[in-house]
Structure formats: structure tokens, C-alpha cells
């Protein structure tokens, strides 16, 4: 069994309020369940409502995979209640900071420094374990496997693939497809294009054929040019990725914080109209808080 529930679908900053009630205002968090295991993808503010549902399972073991350490993907972590209760085991996985060489532990323990949070890491009662991942490393969790590929974002960002039996899902975290930094008449343009194609293939190869793709789709095509280089995808780039990788279901997430439910549904419909259904297309959906899907 492989099942997931969106606990946070908003990008950048939590956006509660009457205009975002339907799709939700919490930042990124996806609860993934297999028969016996709990895997959590990202620890945005959505991990707090998730943690409220976990009491009956104490003592529990869970595996939190961080795509990258930008605030909207880690902000809920200090409020992840299982960490405060003895008997629980929380394993946190993520990449390393290449600038400082620090592992995921150093990066996250800074969140719990005195100036930012009243409880120190040493006071957390659960058994905590940090695991820094290298690219393509496979982590076995019960009958599931989690592997990663480096995406493109202004931080080290791993996309994660969760496989359980013959079911699989892939979550991009934050991702913008690399673009050419050279002009077409520059000498290095073609070389750079070749690198981009190679990189794209390395990502698509991992995503190919998954049942579910959950993809950063922050912008409309009209908005994208002004946000190029910010590290996020658009409806067109996400649809192209889903088609190229031949996925069955594609969920658009990382909704713009200023986008109301009404506008979100409009830009989604516009995008579908602009990309008429083709043979072999996946089903496209807007990610919605508390929506569950069993593969």
C-alpha cells in the first residue's frame, strides 16, 4: 500500500485566511504511508496539523525527508510534536550544505537556538537521528525505498522518489528547469544546452513511469518571465515534465501565497485549456490540503 495526504501545499509563506480555505494556507508537507511506515516529505507549517493526528500512534517511528532547508520547507519542524515525547523515534534526512560542508543536523539544529526557539535540541525527549544523503542514495524503510535526485533551485534541493512494491511517487521539492545562461550566438551556448539536456535526462530517468508526480508549479506562464531564476516551475514546465516522464497522475503544488482559491482554479483551468489533453496524458490536479490519494 502506498498512500499520501497533502498537509501543506502553499509556497514561500503560510497564507491562512478566507481566500485560501479550500486549498489551504500551510507550507509544504506531504504525509506518505505504507502498510507499516510513516514517511514525511518536508516539514513546512503543514507538519503541525499532521502532528496533531499522530498521538494514537505513539510511540512511533517516522522518517522526515527534507527537500531543502529554505524556511517554507522546515518552518514546522520545531512544532513537530512527536519530537517532544519520549519513546518516539524521528529520523531526519536531507542534503548537505556545500558552502559550509555542514550536514542536515547542523543546519536544522540552528532552528532550535535560543534566539529562535525556547526549547533546545538537547531537551527533545524523542530519539532523534540525522542522516545526510548523497545523491541517488537509496534508503530502505520497511517495504519502501526512498531515493533522491538533485533538482535545480537556489539551494541544494533533492527531489524524492518513494517506491513501495509496484507503486511509486515523486516529489520535486522546489524546482525550476535549468535554462541557458548564454545567448544563442555565444560560443558556449550549445555546450551549455548539452549540459542542460544531460541534467534533464538524469531527472526524467528517475521520474519516468511513476504513478504520481507532485511538482512545484508556482507560476503561470505569464508570471514566469519576471520570476526566472527564482527556482520554481510553471504550469507549462510541469505539464511538459509530466508528459515526458509518462506519469499517471500529476499534482501541481507550491501554490503562490497571494493566489486565492478562486484564482488558483482559474489559472489551473487556463493551463489545461492551453495544453489540450493528448493521448497518454496523466490526470492533472491541484494539490489540496488534507486531500488523500491511495496509489
Amino acid at each position: 500500500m502506498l498512500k499520501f495526504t497533502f498537509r501543506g501545499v502553499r509556497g514561500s509563506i503560510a497564507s491562512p485566511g478566507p481566500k485560501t480555505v479550500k486549498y489551504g494556507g500551510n507550507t509544504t508537507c506531504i504525509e506518505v504511508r505504507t502498510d507499516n511506515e510513516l514517511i514525511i516529505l518536508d516539514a513546512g507549517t503543514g507538519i503541525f496539523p499532521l502532528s496533531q493526528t499522530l498521538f494514537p500512534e505513539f510511540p512511533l517511528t517516522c522518517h522526515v525527508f527534507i527537500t531543502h532547508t529554505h524556511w517554507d520547507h522546515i518552518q514546522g519542524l520545531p512544532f513537530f510534536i512527536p519530537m517532544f515525547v519520549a519513546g518516539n523515534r524521528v529520523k531526519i534526512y536531507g542534503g548537505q550544505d556545500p558552502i559550509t560542508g555542514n550536514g542536515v543536523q547542523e543546519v536544522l539544529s540552528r532552528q532550535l537556538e535560543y534566539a529562535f526557539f525556547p526549547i533546545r535540541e538537547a531537551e527533545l525527549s524523542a530519539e532523534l537521528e540525522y542522516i545526510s544523503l548523497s545523491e541517488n542514495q537509496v534508503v530502505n524503510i520497511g517495504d519502501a525505498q526512498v531515493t533522491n535526485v538533485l533538482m535545480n533551485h537556489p539551494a541544494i534541493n533533492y527531489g524524492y522518489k518513494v517506491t513501495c512494491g509496484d507503486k511509486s511517487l515523486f516529489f520535486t521539492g522546489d524546482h525550476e528547469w535549468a535554462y541557458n545562461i548564454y545567448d544563442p550566438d555565444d560560443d558556449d551556448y550549445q555546450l551549455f544546452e548539452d549540459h542542460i539536456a544531460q541534467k534533464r535526462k538524469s531527472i526524467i530517468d528517475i521520474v519516468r513511469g511513476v504513478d504520481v508526480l507532485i511538482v512545484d508549479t508556482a507560476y503561470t506562464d505569464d508570471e514566469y518571465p519576471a520570476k526566472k531564476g527564482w527556482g520554481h516551475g510553471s504550469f507549462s514546465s510541469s505539464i511538459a515534465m509530466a508528459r515526458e516522464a509518462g506519469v499517471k497522475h500529476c499534482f501541481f503544488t507550491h501554490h503562490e501565497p497571494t493566489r486565492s482559491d478562486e484564482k488558483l482554479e482559474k489559472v489551473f483551468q487556463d493551463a489545461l485549456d492551453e495544453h489540450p489533453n493528448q493521448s497518454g496524458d496523466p490526470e492533472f490536479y491541484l494539490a489540496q490540503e488534507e486531500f488523500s490519494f491511495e496509489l
Partner: protein
Amino acid sequence: MDDIHQQLVQMVDKMPAFPGSVNKVLQMTSAIDCAPKDLVQVIEHDPVMMAKILKLVNSAYFGLSREITSIKHGVVFVGLNTIKNLAISIATMGMLPKTGPAGLDMNEFLLHSLGTASIAKLLGKRLGVTPDKATDYFVGGLLHDIGKVVFAQFMPQEMERALKRVESEGVSLSIAETIEIGADHAQLGGMLAEKWQLPHALVTCIKEHHSPELNNDSNKVLDCVIAANIIVKQVEFGSAGNLIEDRLPDRVSARFGMELYELQNSIRDLDEELEKANAFIRI
């Protein structure tokens, strides 16, 4: 030698880059809309920045699933922002002095490295390599003498004596370094490159650019770097403290099917490429 090696590996992490590139990186990156290709160009023209960034992106703890062989490659695989921040972190360490304490003129050294890089790339293209592979030739040429900067920075007295010995006794710098330090810049640079997990072809260029006889398996990149290194000295473009050589090793002349002067004269874009390198570092 092992002791020296250990000490240097630790010290090199703190080694600053060349003044021109440090200034340019800090200046460019203070603007939010800095043109990525300009930044890449600056990094690609500084052997210290190049080596340190390749070291970081190829290190085991970072764990990339493929070898990163150039800065452009790095920009696509680990992201522009990461490369930019690596460059900033190197730039903020300070800068190498214009004339090193050992008496090695860093500007001349930079010209020598850039000249070798440009010519090695031209020679690679001439052997029919693709643009992708031609970058390896440029990087190999740029980094071949990295061991000299390390000696000059961390063993200035020994290096100064070695440089003087070249002038007074007419021995090669490798021999002089071996007498004064116990190892030459190729050995030391090669060891560092191995330790840094740089791509294999680069390690070979650095380690064996004065000893082609060591390399039994025919290596195009190395042969081009050896030839480029000799040509750039012949035309007296920059200087890295070594003697001018007047012939190519046999294997290298066999590779091109000609001797040194014929090869040198047959490179059409030589002056133009060297002028580009010259202009870049004088901006």
C-alpha cells in the same frame, strides 16, 4: 613527503584566490541581477577558484552521482546559486598577493596558466574533440601548475630558493623544487588533485605534465597540456618560473605528427587566443 602533504592539504583549504577575480566576484555579486555568464567567466579564469569549486562539487560528502568537470557543468548540475555562493565564500577569504613571498609574480603566473589553458583547448579541438570535451583541455591547462601556487604560498622560502636555483644553475624548476622541498609542483599538485577527487583526466594533467613517460595509456588531454605548456613558454606569454623548452616529448610530437616549431606555427588562432586571455585579466 607525507607530512608535507598532510600539512598542505589542510592549509590549501584556506588559500585565497587571485586579486582580479576576487575583486570581480565581490563586485559582480553585490548586484542582484549579476549576469551568470560573466560570473562563470571570472571563475573559469582563476586556477584557485576553479580548483576549489571543482573540489567542493566533486567531494564525496556532497555525493553527486557524476563527475563535475567544469564550472558550466557545475552550474547546471548543482545550480547557479550554489556556484555563486561558493565563489563568494572563496572571494571573502582574501586574495593572493600580486607578488608572492617566494618571488613568483602572480600576474605572470596567471597569464601562463591561462595561456596554457587556451592553447590546450585549441589543440584539443584540432584533434577533433567535441566542445564538451574541449573544456576538459582548458581546465587541465589552467590547473596544471596549481602546485606552484601552493608552494609559493605555504613554503615561500624553499620556493624562492628553488626559483633562484633555476636562474643560477639552469636546472628545471622540478629539479630545483625536488632539491629544496623534496617533491616537485607536479607531484604535489597531483596529490592534492587526487585528494580533492578532481576528475581523473585533470589529476593526470597536473601530476604528469613534466613526465609524459609515466603515462603508458595514451592520454590526449595530457599531451595537449604538455604541448601547450611548452608553446606558451616559447612565445613568452606569462611566466611560471620555469625554463623555456625547445622540443616536444617524442610521444607528443608523434601525436601531432610534427615537431614544436611546426606545431606552434600551425596554430592559426594562437595570437588571438592569447590576446583574449591577456585582455581578460587586465580588466
